[in-house]
């Protein structure tokens, strides 16, 4: 089979059958690309997961782009990325056409009263899991706590400050601390 078509179909299948996004997809991508198709090695898969965590965007997209690029350069990256996005695009597009009318039905509106609480729990849980994996040091903790309280303050006062501003500020402060602390560190620890 044409490798581009193969990439597209394999990733479309992953996109269609993984619920919950993120890490659920990683497992299926590893199963398909490392074990079945042997497109990339296990080590490469580990590397790309690390890269995906340090770069923005959905992790599954990062992986698809990487595997596609390894196989067939830019065209491969494009085929794999479109493949992984297309199934959910079609499903969500179809849902969005009638979702508004859905909520006018009373038992669905009741169900939503429960669902919105569940969403809060899931977000809290995701944050707690990330917190568990965070380095237990003073500096990351300070960044995390200041962002936490700043964000609570912003949302309770309905201020119009974007969380992007918070993130950029944190990145900048961290960079300044790094540069300022550098001469004090052991000599020659530079690049």
């Amino acid at each position, binding site marked *: 089979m044409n490798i581009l078509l193969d990439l597209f179909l394999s990733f479309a299948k992953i996109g269609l059958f993984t619920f919950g996004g993120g890490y659920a997809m990683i497992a299926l991508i590893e199963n398909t690309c490392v074990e079945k198709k042997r497109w990339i090695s296990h080590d490469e898969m580990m590397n790309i997961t690390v890269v995906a965590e340090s*770069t923005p*965007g959905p992790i599954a*997209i990062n992986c698809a782009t990487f595997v596609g690029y390894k196989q067939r350069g830019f065209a491969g990256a494009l085929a794999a990325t479109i493949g992984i996005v297309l199934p959910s695009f079609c499903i969500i597009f179809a849902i969005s056409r009638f979702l508004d009318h859905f*909520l006018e039905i009373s038992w669905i509106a009741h169900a939503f009263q429960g669902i919105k609480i569940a*969403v809060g729990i*899931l977000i809290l849980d995701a944050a*707690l899991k990330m917190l568990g994996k965070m380095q237990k040091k003073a500096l990351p903790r300070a960044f995390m706590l200041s962002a936490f309280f700043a964000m609570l303050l912003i949302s309770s006062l309905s201020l119009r400050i974007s969380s992007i501003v918070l993130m950029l500020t944190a990145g900048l402060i961290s960079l300044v601390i790094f540069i300022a602390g550098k001469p004090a560190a052991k000599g020659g620890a530079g690049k």
Partner: protein
Amino acid sequence: MILLELFIGFLKVGCFAFGGAYGAIPLIRDVVLSYGWLDDEMLTYMIAVSESTPGPIMVNLATYVGSSRAGLAGSLVATLAVVLPSFVIILLVTALLKTVLKNPYVQAVLRGLKPCMIGIILATGVSMMLRNGLVIQDGRVLIRPLLLTLLLGTVYFGSRKLQKSGISPILLICLSAAAGIAAYGL
């Protein structure tokens, strides 16, 4: 123009969403609420739908918001915008800049950015829990949201004590829907 707004809005989300699916939710809330594309209720509902349908949550949300604002064209533009940054960044990282992520300055920026992201997600979760669970009307705390919150929280976090993996997010959403119908409908 709405298409351009959608593009720029979701490009921002795609550029700054570190930390996977949930990392994007505070950003999407930010963007979607500040442009007034959806209200908070609809957005929360949509997060549940995105969680219960296949595919990356961030992409699902972009498709939905785009479609509800500007039909097929809107959903295409929003989806493209949210995917584009990670696509380009991965191409650059694999093709040209293999060492860029190991650069100590880039590392320093990321060391500040990631904990900050965690704090933002935590704050989003906490304020959503408070807003949905602790509803005050006429000076009294409404009993049903509070009970639902305690029940679902106990079930979700408690199930992890009994079983290593606990219940899945989709199962929690199904349970919460049933609990909501029972609490308000019966």
